[in-house]
């Protein structure tokens, strides 16, 4: 990296011919050495300020009892004020198993049914029909992702509303004689948590899978069909194995992003309607740190929840890389004869 940039500095065309003069070699060399850092600096500053420092702060805070009542009094940066109490509190919390269970269910179901499952199905369907139709459909499906999340979630709340206002009740369930027209978010909160997250989540995988499928050279699918495969067999034996890499990527990436996403649930049910009924881990962290029934937002305790979540995420990522044999995917083929 450094060497390459240096070369550019020395050999690259200066904007003015006068810079080619011998007197400028020294300047140009210095410029060559500093240039990479100059170019990197905006990103470096941003990453340090908004990613690295907060990360360290959250980590430190998780060992303290900092909250709104002792803010400005507690010297949280001093190791004497650090303890594992927050972590003990988390693991002795009597709602821990419910929150953990909710989180696992939320991530697993949304991921399997929507973010990967439905994404793959849509990608396959839209790449096996007329190109333009497929493209138009995918574009439509992408809209929720670029809609502001509040608007999008409120739309779902309106859809789920009780009869006669709620669209689903009024036009589908009541005419079909299903249910009593009650507020669906109260009767089936999880269904809506999955749907609201899944419909947005699926668009990411859909775009990636569709472009991966479209970039498979036509010869492979033609060969497969001449070899006697049906469309489904071609998908199963040729196309899916060839998009293994995007599949791994989307699964891993979406697991992590689902683990940390809570804004839709917060806007939709805020963890309710029952006690901790739809509360997931990241939402708990948010609740503990930034809102509180007692008015004392517990920054330290919330940070501890967040740190545990980060550790869960890292463990998940490592497991995925193992299961998908990531090493094999990036390994160079061994050639002993040409």
């Amino acid at each position: 990296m450094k060497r390459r940039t240096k070369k550019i500095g020395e050999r690259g065309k200066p904007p003015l011919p006068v810079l080619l003069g011998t007197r400028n070699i020294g300047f140009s060399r210095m410029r060559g050495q500093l240039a990479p850092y100059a170019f990197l600096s905006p990103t470096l500053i941003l990453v340090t300020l908004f990613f690295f420092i907060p990360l360290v702060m959250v980590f430190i805070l998780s060992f303290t009892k900092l909250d709104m009542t002792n803010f400005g009094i507690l010297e949280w940066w001093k190791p004497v004020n650090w303890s594992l109490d927050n972590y003990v509190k988390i693991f002795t919390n009597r709602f821990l198993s419910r929150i953990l269970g909710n989180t696992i269910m939320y991530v697993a179901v949304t991921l399997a049914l929507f973010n990967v499952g439905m994404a793959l199905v849509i990608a396959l369907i839209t790449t096996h029909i007329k190109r333009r139709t497929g493209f138009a459909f995918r574009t439509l499906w992408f809209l929720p992702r670029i809609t502001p999340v509040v608007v999008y979630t409120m739309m779902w709340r309106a859809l789920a509303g009780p009869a006669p206002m709620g669209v689903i009740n009024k036009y589908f369930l009541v005419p079909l004689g299903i249910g009593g027209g009650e507020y669906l978010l109260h009767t089936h909160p999880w269904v809506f948590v999955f749907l609201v997250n899944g419909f947005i989540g699926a668009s990411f995988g859909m775009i990636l899978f569709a472009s991966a499928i479209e970039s498979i050279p036509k010869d492979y699918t033609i060969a497969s069909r001449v070899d006697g495969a049906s469309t489904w067999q071609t998908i199963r034996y040729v196309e899916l194995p060839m998009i293994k890499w995007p599949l791994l990527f989307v699964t891993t990436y979406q697991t992590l992003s689902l683990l940390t996403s809570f804004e839709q649930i917060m806007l939709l049910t805020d963890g309710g309607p029952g006690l901790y009924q739809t509360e997931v881990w990241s939402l708990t962290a948010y609740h503990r740190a930034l809102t509180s029934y007692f008015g004392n937002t517990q920054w330290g305790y919330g940070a501890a929840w967040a740190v545990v979540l980060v550790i869960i995420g890292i463990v998940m990522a490592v497991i995925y890389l193992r299961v998908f044999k990531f090493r094999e995917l990036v390994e160079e083929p061994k050639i002993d004869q040409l």
Partner: protein
Amino acid sequence: MKIALEALNKHFGKVKAVDNLDLEIGDGEFVALLGPSGCGKTTTLLMLAGIYKPTSGHICFDDRVVNHLLPKERNIGMVFQSYALYPHMTTFDNIAYPLKLKRVRRREIKERVQKSADMMGIGDLLDRKPAQLSGGQQQRVALARALVKEPAILLFDEPLSNLDAKLRLRMRGEIKRLQEDLGVTAVYVTHDQVEAMTMASRIALMNYGVLQTYGTPNQLYDHPDTFFVAGFIGAPPMNFLEMTFEERENGFYLKTQALEIRISAERGALAKQNDIPQRVIMGIRPESVSIVAERDGDFKAEVHLIEPLGREDLVTFRFIDEEIRVLVPAPFDGRIGETICLKLDKEKAHLFNPETEVSVLRTGNGRSS
């Protein structure tokens, strides 16, 4: 299996990729589809394979119309220029794939894969992935995969274009021998005329989706019936001169500013019968022109360029504002700028109507003499 294409059309929007194609291929025959890039060769092949649906017309296998049959119902093997070996499967799995789809029993699959792999000389590469094989080996795997289900028809789409010249020559022979041994009908797409000439029993020459001619390599070479065929077949290509046709009391003559040749009464009469216009295009192959002593010559020309080809030299001569290329036995002892006498083998001259681009020397059955 016999193949017959009847008034076959394939249009992509406004593009007529294949335009009203009629073609008959005998059982066990090796036919080459030859033509420049974009002339519709691959499209024709993919219609045979059942990938593309014809816009109109019929495809018949053994007198049975197969237009509606899916690829898997056609019993076809196909080899691609890109080999199209599935990169995630080993050689074994690649070759076994057609059998697996047919639900052949495990043990039989193993035997048949081994057999066709051995036939192609890749029996010891079965556990490699395609990325671990050389181009030539990949080509053999692709052939083995096409052969393993014992197809009635083999389709080739420029299978040798990615190989180096030496290997190409060898594979050419191997494919031909294999096809003859198995007695399988083969359609071989290529834009390499040497490949077509050496391998095929008949060549279908296409241009802009239209079949130009269909015949044996010798027919196409010796009696091209259109200007396009004459120019496409043969390397180095045929020379063309624009000439004037004249009938005099003592015979038929072709004239330009620089030369005048007399053609036989027989050929002259045939040309007249075919409504030869006054201005014609005369075509003559580089090997049908010879260097002669001054009194025997038809015309004089100046040596412009000498290109040694090994056994022969290709010499470009200039006269007035025309050019003619001649194959002379090597070594050619003339020098550039020297004036030399040339003679045309009049019986080997071809005459084309510049308007219709059709040969005026064709006999009643449509073939030019």
